[in-house]
């Protein structure tokens, strides 16, 4: 066995030199050894037309693309709301049945139920236009990061837009940054579900926000991050609410010498960042909405001046 592996290693050496990626090396090894991944197996699967047994549905729009309807019904979905949504969205009703079948096959193979698979497609219809290899590659990238299939499946079912991310580096860098903040895989998945915009924001913004939360606001309880959408906010949004509370005297940075278990009396991150402006101003800060709006405008001006000042200092340094 060891000889065999050594042979394979030598034969794939040239390719490794070119790609210089560990992940591609593993893939090549698996191919040479005859161990196919889930993605490979799904990609190689032939799409088989199933016979559809359609049951009459009262409220279902008969004018919609009948093949698509029949196909969805063939998976045992009788929920009228879902069927109505499919009819309402032309991108779903007019798409090729083979595209539906392709995505459904992938999802069911990965362990999702048929109804969840359809719901996921309804959530993000652009999935139908992605190639099966791309979907599988993205899914495998997520699994590689998390080293868990269940968590990834749940996450993708809730945020199918993550399958459109093709860059492995993007996924890994954000995953690692989030893991560094919240320490557990489940919490990372929870954060990504609640604020998917993290995947599309710049990494420096995420760094800045996490630094601000840990160094200025001194948030010590990692569980608080996953319960709020704060990591999906921009630094300005985070700062404006924190500074407002700080100036109102409603947020005191906790003393690091005091145990975490002793309540600080500060509002939680969720209370600060997951509330409407009115709720935040009236309930959390104890002032009027007008005051918060005025403060926001003042802060925006200050932010602009800070930015210009930092730009000027940067140019001076150069």
């Amino acid at each position, binding site marked *: 066995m060891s000889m065999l592996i050594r042979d394979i290693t030598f034969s794939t050496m040239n390719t490794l030199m070119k790609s210089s990626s560990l992940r591609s090396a593993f893939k090549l090894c698996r191919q040479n050894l005859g161990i196919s991944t889930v993605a490979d197996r799904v990609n190689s699967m032939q799409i088989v037309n199933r016979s559809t047994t359609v049951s009459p549905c009262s409220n279902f729009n008969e004018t919609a693309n009948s093949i698509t309807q029949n196909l969805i019904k063939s998976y045992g979905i009788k929920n009228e709301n879902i069927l109505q949504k499919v009819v309402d969205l032309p991108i779903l009703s007019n798409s090729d049945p083979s595209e539906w079948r392709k995505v459904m096959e992938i999802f069911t193979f990965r362990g999702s139920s048929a109804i969840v698979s359809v719901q996921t497609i309804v959530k993000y219809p652009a999935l139908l236009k992605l190639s099966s290899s791309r979907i599988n590659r993205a899914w495998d990238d997520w699994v590689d990061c998390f080293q868990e299939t269940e968590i990834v499946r749940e996450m993708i079912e809730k945020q199918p837009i993550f399958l459109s991310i093709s860059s492995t580096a993007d996924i890994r860098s954000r995953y690692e940054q989030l893991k560094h903040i919240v320490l557990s895989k489940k919490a990372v998945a929870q954060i990504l579900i609640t604020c998917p915009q993290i995947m599309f924001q710049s990494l420096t913004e995420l760094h800045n926000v996490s630094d601000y939360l840990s160094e200025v606001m001194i948030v010590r309880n990692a569980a608080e991050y996953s319960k709020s959408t704060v990591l999906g906010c921009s630094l300005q949004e985070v700062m404006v609410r924190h500074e407002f509370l700080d100036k109102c005297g409603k947020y005191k940075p906790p003393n690091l010498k005091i145990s975490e278990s002793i309540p600080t009396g500060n509002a939680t991150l969720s209370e600060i960042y997951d509330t409407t402006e009115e709720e935040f101003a009236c309930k959390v800060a*104890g*002032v009027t909405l007008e*005051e918060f709006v005025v403060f926001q405008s003042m802060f925006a001006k200050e932010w602009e001046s800070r930015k210009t000042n930092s730009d000027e200092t940067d140019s001076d340094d150069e």
Partner: protein
Amino acid sequence: MLRHTFLSSSLKMYSRDLLYIPKRWNKKYKEKRLEKLRNHNKALAQLDDFYGSVYKDSWPSIRIALLSEEKKGVVVNNFSDKERIQKYLMSIGAYNLRKIFNTEVKIMNESGGKQKQHREMSSNIYQIDGSIEEALLRQKQSEMADIYPEPVDSKIIENTYQSLTEKHNEDVVDDSKEGSGSRDPTQDTPLAESLKSADYDTARIILPGPTGIALSASLYDFVPTSKLKGLDDFIPESTHYKYYKDVPEAPYDLEIEEVPQFPDHLDVYAFERGNCDTFEYSRRGSTEVFDYHILRLGYLAPVLALDLKNGENVLDMTGSNLDIPMLICQTLTPGLFVINCGATRRGKYFLRYLESFIYDSVEESCKFVVTDDHPFAIEDAGMYDKIIVTVPSTFDRKAVTDDENNMFSPSLIKERLKLPEAQTAVLSKALELVKEGGSVVYCTETLSPIQNDAVVQRALEAQWTKSNTKFTIRDLSRAMEPLQSFLKIVPAKYGQLVTPFLPNNCGPLYFSKLVKNLNQGNSE
């Protein structure tokens, strides 16, 4: 092998020791520690403690306004190109406050329903008495904790506080029964007499001779401290808070002030509510004087409260800033306006600044004099129709933002604690100087009721006990109603308080109007 592991482990230890940086050298840690010690942070902590209990739910709103930039306005110079300046100010979106004031007065006169609103407003006067007690108790607790390092039982403190308050109440009752000055608890008695009536602890008396010493176990007993030495100059902070509580009531009349007339020549411009834009620095116009003066908008209220009439003699007794003199000058009403800078050596600067706004030729029509006397040295009693007194106070807005000349600095603690007494003295002097029928407007830049209402009450009491002079306190709540659209004015016990509020961020500024009653000499 063993030697190798030992060496490697010791090397590791050595490198770790080399890399170890003591916490006190850490820059961030140092900055944080220094930040806590800064005067403005100390001030903020004290204000949180005191005003938090006085203003309760409205304190966060005041706090954020105090920590934000103050709203400014401009007073247009009548001696420059007025029309051009007004056009320019309107073009940048500023409003003429005189026009708004007059419109508000019109609306008030038309609708009588405003009176109801006024009554509702006056019922919302913040509760001070109970809150002051809380602050006093807390202050006492902290002082006791400072003096006695051991944790003091809270029950003991409560008991002492209760006993003190009971004792105080009894004293007040006794005083009222026996008359003032009949009983003095600190009366000195000869030592021999006091020894006769003294209670001795016989267990602690040590008998002469070696047996007495041997037998006396009291030598080994713990002797608690009965008096602290070396704290002769120590002023407990609780006495400062007591200044409000222990004020005796002097007789005074209360009258509702009618809405004053906004001076015709006074043009003050400001941006609308919620707009925090600032004005550009003033330039010289065609007459070679400055176009406008940028001022803190809150000062408009006490100047309007003065209700200046043509040809009156006006005195700014403590000229602490240029805003009030500039506003009074631009009304063009006073016959004589004396600005006394109060031995601060600011006289020359004031004169130079005022001259850059006014021609030499018009000086005679609106006569103003700048003096540098100490307020107590002014001797023109009965000469002034109107006096405005802006006494030095804790300057809350400055205290929470600036470290320099901060009244909450540890080096100025004595001055801060003695402020109410100094303020009372200055106000008493102003009440002496004013003509019969003339009025005094007392101003402070603080939210503290100890420096505001308590000082007014003390000064009234002092005047009553000294010369049986009676004053009328003018209730300005109705008079200040037209200003509510651009200033948040809250009624206090004896005056009005311009409260910081972010959309109209002016103040804090307390002002009270006192009128010397007529025919005082005849009644005596």
